[in-house]
């Protein structure tokens, strides 16, 4: 959480449960980007964080639920 400043973007892995966020950027290789976009996570996509404590994150996008590893979530930049 330390790297977050007021008004700045944060990583999805730092987002609080119950919050709606918009994906700003997926900072990773092409392969992961493609996979994530198939699951509904791409620039501009709206995602709700359902669960984020430990272990994989649970997200909701387009009415469907996803589980995403923490490492991957740390590569997804979202708005606050």
């Amino acid at each position, binding site marked *: 959480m330390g790297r977050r400043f007021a008004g700045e973007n944060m990583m999805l892995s730092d987002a609080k449960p119950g919050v709606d966020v918009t994906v700003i950027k997926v900072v990773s290789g092409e*392969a*992961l980007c*493609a*996979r*994530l*976009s*198939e*699951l*509904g996570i*791409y*620039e*501009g996509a709206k995602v709700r964080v*359902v*669960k984020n404590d*430990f*272990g*994989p994150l*649970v997200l*909701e996008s*387009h*009415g*469907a*639920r*996803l*589980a*995403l*590893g*923490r*490492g*991957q979530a740390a590569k997804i930049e979202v708005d606050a």
Partner: protein
Amino acid sequence: MKGRGKARRCLLVGQPNCGKSTLFNRLTCGRQHIGNWHGKTIECAEGVCRVGGREMEIVDLPGTYSLSPYSDEEREAVQEILCGGHDVAVQVADCRHLERSLFFTMRLLEKCPRLVVALNKCDSARQCGMGIDERRLSEKFGAQFILVSAKTGEGVARLLSACSPKAGGKPGRKATFPKSLVERRRFVKEAIEASVSGRRQEGAMGRLDLLFLNPWIGIPLFIAAMWLVFQATFALSAPATELIDAAFSAAGAEAAALLANAGAPDWAASLVENGIVAGIGSVLVFAPAIFVLFFLLYAMEDTGYLARIAVLLDGLMGKAGLSGKAAMPLILGFGCNVPAIMATRILDSKEDRLAAMAAVPFMSCAARLPVFTVFAGAFFASQQGAVLLFLYLFGAASGLLTAFAFRGVFLHSGKAELAIELPDYQVPSWGVVASQAWLQTGEFAKRAGTIILACSVLVWFLASMPQGADYGSKGSYAGMLGSAISPVFAPLGFGDWQSSVSLMFGLVAKEVVVGAMASAYGAGEGELSAILSSHFTPLSAISFMVFVLLYVPCIATIVALKKESGSLLFAAGAAVYYVLFAWVAAFIIYNAGLALGF
């Protein structure tokens, strides 16, 4: 029938959880089989259905999100299949989650122009208050969209007629879609806005996740669920198992008697009774348990609960280099290793599967229990439970350690991070679950049966030859072999020929160990514990139990390893590894115990 060459071939393609298998089951009315192996890793269910008096072959491909190169071998194979060899493809899409499916539709249409899109689960979409205009979608994409419900059968006839050759429509028109991802997304969004009305509300079911995924509640719930599965597996399959067992021993005795009456030599009667009939029986007694276990496993998968278990246990399993999804097969291993190894199919990557498969045989299956109860009863009567618990935990720890080491030494890709869809909770479609379980059981009986049969004939031969030797006595080949290999076990504390013989027989199936030991010591099974105390010390009993726990579970398991990994080297290597691991573990325990003065 005019000029028919090969039957028309139709592929079913779709994302996981879109109801593809339910549709497949409906189209083929359950008449299906597991198809040939395409490449090495994937199997497809194939079936036949009749359309307008002609047969159409239907292939159910594994669920896939895309044709993108990210995916593992399975999906590469899917891509290969998509590039040719079929007449028509049906994309099955869950019409409640159209956004993702339509993206895939575009990719598919670029590859295969003869595509029909089945908008599945239209009944449940209607209940959620969604309206979908299939005509608009068809116009927008230049492919036929049909609302169906695989569950109720609605729209299936229309789907079939759309797949028939007459419905050729406008073939060859290769669709052109925007190139860039951003524009494609806009295209899909516009298509949905133009053709879908009403919004899907979040169901109360969604809240179940907070329960199932909370570690403090979820893990006890999961343990309870697994306990129920085991209890149910044994309780439900026991009558059928006993029936099969009784039928085979009766049939064996009957056949032997018939042969004897017909003047056949003794050895022939014994071969038929103890070798062939008992051999087939020893395979088929597993079948009811395998069917029930697979039925319950598939049902759990179908409800959507299995995906939650993967999330719940991801952290724990991750420490052993396994993905969370591997928990399920490993736990099934406590019941029977064979279906557990088959169940590793639910894992995504080949690497994950191999690591999990390597670990499964250390999970102490039900067949090992009789050995433990006899020994623990004879030597540790007051602490039986503690001894059993120690053995189960020791096996599980050895399995996780093995997966961890296997990953480190042989597989250099890191553990795949979880990125899965959590399907909506639903009531399983029992017909599909049953037919999948039935298919797996048949495959087990067919493939494993031939090899187990051969092995049990071999064991029979060793135990009853040369002529005149008593079955499994020191004078038989088995007894001689036992005497020959017994020095290997001397450093572990059990170097007599009798235990060596029983361990050899235990290779066929662990249930055999106790019986073989009894006949080698010339004791009835009831007297065995008394005799054991003159041949074993408590320490060597522990060492023997640890060896039985860890060395090759049974031939059926090795056959399953070979079949599921597609590699004889892997299976053979694993078998050698298990024996060495068991030897080293028993050696350490025995000698450490001696040094400590036990």
